[in-house]
């Protein structure tokens, strides 16, 4: 019995080591994504094709479902299962459209990862710089990376010059719901129409 316990522990350590050693670091994860996005934006693809490629990147690397529920704030507690499902679908469509149309305006952006700060086992903040151009100064962009599963890192927030996009989104949604008698369906309708 003791032997089996030791063997189990050894196997566990081995696989943990294996998974961690194969997992990409949050800094490399962000650098890879931004390089990829930069290549797409500087390519000769049409605007639509660029947006579609950017959507693919976001879908794969951003925790859209998590951000969706975060941005709903306390209202998410009162949703039925059907409403949760409907909201997740609507939010995903909205997020991908909004995200890709925000980014597609930039041509050949160069983002350099400069450092990372491990907050705890679940979160690491990756600090990066969007290089200055003749039209705008250098911009600091921090990425909140969800690291609970080291082999599947996910972006949960973008913090531009200290301003959190997830928080801004949350306050926008909250404003829509509260100005419609706390009716969450009003937000669903707004997202549908976006």
């Amino acid at each position, binding site marked *: 019995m003791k032997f089996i316990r030791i063997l189990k522990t050894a196997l566990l350590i081995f696989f943990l080591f294996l998974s961690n050693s194969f997992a990409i670091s949050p800094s490399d994860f962000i650098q890879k994504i931004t390089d990829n996005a930069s290549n797409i934006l500087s390519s000769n693809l049409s605007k639509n094709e660029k947006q579609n490629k950017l959507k693919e990147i976001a879908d794969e690397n951003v925790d859209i479902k*998590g951000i969706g*529920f*975060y941005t709903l*704030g306390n209202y998410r507690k009162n949703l039925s299962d059907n409403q949760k499902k409907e909201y997740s679908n609507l939010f995903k469509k*909205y997020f991908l459209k*909004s995200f890709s*149309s*925000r980014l597609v*305006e930039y041509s050949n952006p160069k983002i350099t990862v400069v450092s990372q*700060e491990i*907050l705890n086992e*679940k*979160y690491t*903040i990756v*600090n990066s710089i969007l290089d200055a151009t*003749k*039209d*705008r*100064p250098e911009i600091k962009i*921090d990425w*909140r990376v969800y690291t*609970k599963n080291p082999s599947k890192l996910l972006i*949960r*927030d973008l*913090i531009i010059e*200290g*301003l*959190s996009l*997830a*928080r*801004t989104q*949350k*306050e*926008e*949604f*909250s*404003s*829509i719901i509260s*100005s419609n008698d706390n009716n969450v369906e009003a937000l669903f309708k*707004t*997202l549908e129409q*976006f």
Partner: protein
Amino acid sequence: MNKFIKLSVLIIFIQCLPFYASAGSDGTISLSEKDKPVKDCFEKINRTTFAFNQSLDRVLFKPIAKGYNKLPRPIKNGSSNFVGNISNLVTIPNNILQGDFKSAGINTIRLIINTTLGIVGLYDAAEAMGLEKLDKEDYGQTLGKMGVGPGCYLVLPVLGPSTVRDTIGNFANFSGGDPFYNITIKHDTQYFSEPDYYSTRATAALDFRAKNLGSLDNLEKNSVDFYAAVRSLYLQDRQKKIANNEVATETMDDSDWEEIEEQ
């Protein structure tokens, strides 16, 4: 002019009194508790003012800012440096009031170097000598640093987003807190006049608008509630500036994410 300013300050103070009272009673806003959410007490009026400001922006500020952006780079940099240098006159007393004597010293040296060697601030000679530009400070930030909460969110005509605290902080500029205002408007000097003050303030506003043309357009296009997005960004920015904190994680409330873990 002075009487009008004093009267306006008094009116704002009187208007603030109910906010102080309600802050304690409903528990949702407290001018002494920094982390409480800021209440939009006058949302209907604020939204109307916001719409008015947007119209004004569309017909006046945006076209001028677009034109400004077409100016040669050295001219834009020069005017940006010039207004940045003058803003030190408000930043330095606020550095001192916040007990940040090191920054006050650096900003004073920068002001002297840039006003002289930098030809009235048009060229950032101090940066070339290794004295990096520091963050601006104002009386609203100093009040925040002293523990005064933001009070209600306000949208001021033409001037845009603010809070009760930041508006009061702005009035400090007109009550002796801004040396540039003092020498151009408050006291009759033979070297400066009122247009010098107003044109400098207008240039600072234009410089800010021109630098943010693309990002504001993008934000407006992709927002489901542009008013709420601007409000959120303004309040986050003020919170960050008051904390003088570069740590991005301060802007997030982790408790909401924790709940999502368990869903």
